[in-house]
């Protein structure tokens, strides 16, 4: 019995000792001279900021370059400028789209808001995505080739191995409409206008069109 108790105590010690190791920030970014991109002999290398210095204070993410950039922006860890030119109109659109043509995978919820907090409408529309819902011919195989979402996801945004972040809506429990979700809230971009597609019958509306810019 004593042995059993001692064994349990040791197990507890192991767990207690190991927890700080889990809680500590294990992220480590390579120094510029060791990142296989910069020339260690570069005469101005010492002028440049090292990634660890800038990124260690930002919220953690388990994928990509280990920074949760959307969280960092939304919660004020960073305050990146929205424009250089004073006359530039800054557009933010709060509109989710539900894609149902996802095979065996859960439906995709595309949230415009975190995307437009970073990007302008013209960065995606009309060149990469048609504004018309389901009008772009999006396929996972093409995304994996670097088209559509794959143009950024896997490079500057979380990688395509994070399936569930996009395929996040269970077909078993989803009861809403496909396409655009509800009216556009008043605080979204003035350019987004007031047009808001709706499909009150709850059926798939492949022609539902998000508000045009």
């Amino acid at each position, binding site marked *: 019995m*004593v042995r059993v108790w001692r*064994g349990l*105590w*040791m197990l507890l*010690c*192991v767990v207690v000792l*190991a927890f700080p*190791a889990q809680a500590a920030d*294990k*992220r*480590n*970014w*390579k120094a*510029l001279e060791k*990142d296989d*991109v*910069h*020339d260690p002999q*570069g*005469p*101005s*290398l010492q*002028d*440049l900021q090292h*990634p660890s210095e*800038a*990124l260690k204070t*930002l919220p953690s993410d*388990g994928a*990509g*370059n*280990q*920074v949760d950039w959307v969280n960092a922006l939304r919660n004020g860890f*960073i305050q*990146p*400028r*929205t*424009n*250089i*030119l004073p006359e*530039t109109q*800054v557009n933010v659109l709060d509109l989710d789209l539900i894609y149902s043509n996802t095979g065996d995978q859960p439906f995709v919820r595309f949230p415009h808001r975190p995307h437009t*907090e*970073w*990007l*302008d409408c*013209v*960065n995606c529309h009309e060149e990469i995505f048609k504004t018309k819902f389901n009008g772009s011919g999006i396929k996972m195989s093409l*995304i*994996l*080739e*670097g088209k559509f979402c*794959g*143009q950024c*996801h*896997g*490079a*500057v945004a979380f*990688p*395509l191995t994070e399936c569930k972040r996009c395929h996040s809506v269970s077909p078993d429990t989803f009861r809403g409409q496909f396409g655009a979700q509800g009216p556009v809230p008043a605080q979204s971009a003035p350019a987004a206008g007031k047009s808001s597609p709706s499909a009150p019958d709850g059926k798939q509306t492949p022609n539902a069109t998000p508000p045009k810019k």
Partner: protein
Amino acid sequence: MPRHPKSDPFSGWRTAVAVALLVVTGLVWGAPPAEAEYADVVLNRLSEANGMRPVIYPHWFHRIRFRCKVCHSELGFKMRAGSNDINMMKLMDGKYCGMCHNNNVAWGLDNCHRCHSGRPGMETGVRGGHKAGGPGFW
């Protein structure tokens, strides 16, 4: 209670089990090292041909200070590495990087080696992209 030498918790199989547990815990909870160069852009269409190191553009550095829309909308950078026809004359005219790197918003173009800092021999493109991501195929 008499203390038998074999009951010492730091001897024998118990130590081995404890060490094994620690090793396994470390393996399970230890995070892989992050790639700093995730989406670093290498520009070498003209650089090395003109006696300079390739340009390294770090996305991570710039996005802390500017949203994507500033460069990809206001400054006119297309969304694919190497698809912009950039040269130093355009930068000096205040286009592309020169819109900020003018000793006003950011340090000026006379700091050649801060941008032309790449390892020689690299081709234009995105570096550090995830293996399952698009840029891995570009």
